[in-house]
């Protein structure tokens, strides 16, 4: 192993040893908090997924069926709100981030453990309020644009409070991670010896901390509009609905990188381990994470090309948007260069990583179509957009999450997953996903608008295909979760380092001991020396040479 502290043989209790409700509810252990986040967010992934299946089922045929149009609006709003705010934004940072940031940098916990627990409970409170707001059915879509959201009878004010709390939790987590990464790295772990997952999480946290307050103030203003009749967003009162959209997207665009960057971090960890090669272009990948985070703050206007924003601003935002593709492309090229001539092992984490690269390339490239002002005018608010963001969010983030879950499952649970079931699930999910969402690109170009509960008959063929795809996708996901559940009880006991990884979490037992490291390790090199002469590829030495 690459680092001196190998605490695997210590007789300390692992972090799961204590049982009982209190030991979880009052825990300050970042690992347990991470596990609690994982269960919570995955619950909403499944719930949101069921809603998606219902929506697809309704769209199987063009005419009225199953439920009313209003119910359709309500269901897709719930699908959006749950998937975006309760699943995909917190999923990787709060669960895997919480669990693995301290492990990967050689720390015993995050910088502020109590704040960490507090942010989990703020998250829970936010969930309760958000779900509570759904009592009066929400029909605004997850973007709750004004002026409709300022007037609808739905409990928008309650929803804003719920999302405010969820956002606050996200800010506290991000703050914690930033300080943790700055102050608690093990001795010798310079910035260029950090695992790339840490770089990704750092960039993610910066976005969370700096963008979330803007949505918070937007929600407060919306609440003020509904409660006190202030007219910030209401043109009838001299307000400007576009201001809402500026604020909303100033948050929500950078936040798509909160969703994707951690997934990219996971992919950067998985690829070198299973290609048995040092990661190619370490610094380029690390800096591109920061570049994505920064450029992400410059491009929000591309969501507003057709909503009445000035043409000048449209041109500027369109131009800036293309720049995001550069660091993203840098990452993709570096991963592929890492794969080149590697001795690739197609274990399940690697399969998910490959699925990520494949699907995310499609999602990313179609994003360029949408970022181009002229093309966007044509395809905005069509199924092209729906396909694009599902390719980035589900094809990207969720595949990255799956890669992370399969990669780290042995470390988190102390059990090995059933590899055969994992591969069967992969063989259903990846094609199922493409059958569901690829037709939507075509539907979009043909002109089918998003959010329609009913549609002209000419679109039926591809819609039916998409719905059938969603069933294949669902079958795969069920098998995957059965595997997760089954392996908890029946899985083989996991060794400390099943994948022969070099990062620090693999140098301690599975599941990790409560205090992580008996002795805080000292770091002498970067963690990506796979299958080669080590010194030649140490990040630092490489530079100096």
């Amino acid at each position, binding site marked *: 192993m690459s680092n001196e502290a190998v605490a695997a043989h210590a007789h300390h209790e692992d972090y799961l040893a204590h049982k009982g409700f209190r030991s979880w509810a009052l825990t300050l252990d970042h690992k347990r908090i991470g596990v609690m986040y994982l269960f919570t967010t995955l619950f909403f992934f499944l719930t949101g997924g069921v809603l998606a299946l219902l929506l697809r089922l309704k769209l199987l045929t063009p005419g009225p069926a199953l439920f009313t149009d209003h119910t359709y609006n309500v269901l897709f709003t719930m699908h959006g709100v749950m998937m975006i705010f309760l699943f995909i934004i917190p999923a990787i940072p709060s669960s895997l981030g919480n669990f693995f940031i301290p492990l990967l940098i050689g720390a015993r916990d995050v910088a502020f453990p109590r704040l960490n627990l507090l942010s989990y409970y703020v998250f829970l409170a936010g969930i309760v309020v958000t779900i509570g707001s759904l009592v009066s059915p929400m029909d605004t879509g997850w973007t709750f644009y004004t002026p409709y959201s300022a007037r609808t009878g739905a409990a928008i004010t309650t929803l804003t409070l719920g999302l405010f709390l969820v956002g606050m939790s996200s800010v506290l987590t991000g703050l914690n991670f930033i300080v943790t990464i700055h102050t608690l790295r093990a001795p010798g772990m310079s910035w260029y010896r950090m695992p790339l997952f840490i770089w990704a999480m750092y960039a993610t946290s910066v976005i969370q901390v*700096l963008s979330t307050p803007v949505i918070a103030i937007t929600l407060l203003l919306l609440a003020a509009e509904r409660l006190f009749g202030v007219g910030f967003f209401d043109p009838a009162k001299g307000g400007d609905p576009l201001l809402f959209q*500026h604020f909303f997207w*100033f948050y929500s665009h950078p936040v798509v990188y909160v969703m994707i960057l951690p997934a990219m971090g996971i992919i950067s960890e998985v690829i070198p381990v299973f290609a048995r090669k040092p990661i190619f272009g370490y610094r380029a990948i690390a800096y591109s994470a920061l570049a994505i985070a920064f450029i992400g703050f*410059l491009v929000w206007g591309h969501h*507003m090309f057709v909503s009445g924003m*000035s043409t*000048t*601003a449209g041109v500027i935002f369109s131009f800036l948007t293309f720049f995001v593709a550069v660091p993203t492309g840098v990452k993709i090229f570096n991963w592929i260069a890492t794969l080149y001539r590697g001795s690739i092992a197609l274990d399940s984490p690697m399969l998910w990583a490959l699925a990520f690269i494949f699907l995310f390339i499609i999602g990313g490239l179609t994003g360029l179509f949408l970022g181009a002002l002229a093309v966007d005018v044509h395809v905005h608010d069509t199924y092209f957009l729906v396909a694009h963001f599902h390719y980035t969010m589900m094809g990207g983030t969720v595949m990255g999450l799956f890669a992370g879950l399969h990669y780290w499952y042995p470390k988190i649970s102390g059990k090995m997953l059933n590899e055969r079931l994992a591969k069967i699930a992969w063989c259903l999910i990846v094609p199922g996903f493409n059958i569901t969402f690829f037709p939507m690109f075509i539907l979009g170009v043909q002109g089918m608008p998003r959010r329609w509960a009913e549609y002209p008959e000419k679109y039926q063929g591809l819609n039916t295909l998409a719905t059938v795809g969603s069933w294949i996708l669902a079958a795969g996901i069920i098998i995957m979760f059965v595997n997760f559940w089954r392996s908890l009880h029946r899985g083989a006991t996991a060794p400390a380092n099943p994948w022969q990884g070099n990062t620090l979490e693999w140098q301690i037992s599975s599941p990790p001991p409560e205090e992580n490291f008996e002795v805080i390790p000292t770091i002498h090199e970067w963690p990506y020396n796979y299958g080669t002469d080590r010194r030649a590829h140490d990040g630092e030495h490489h530079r100096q040479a």
Partner: protein
Amino acid sequence: MAAYKTYIFVWVSLLVLTVVTVLVSYVNLGLWNAGAALTIASVKAGLVAYYFMHLRHETKLVVAFAIFPLLVLALILFGTLIDVYTR
């Protein structure tokens, strides 16, 4: 009290600047009123940040943490205003 001399000096400066900005506001300078008021406010803010918030003794890292958010604030201001003023 000698130990707190700097703080008191800063405080007196802040009060003087407050008086100045109020007096200036009664003079009609046209567009320059806003500029003068914001300039004075920024000087005051700088004094508070530099002395009261100890930025003069802080490490570079903490100073960076204090400055970077201002850049992001500038982004949202300019991005939104570019749209509003070219509509």
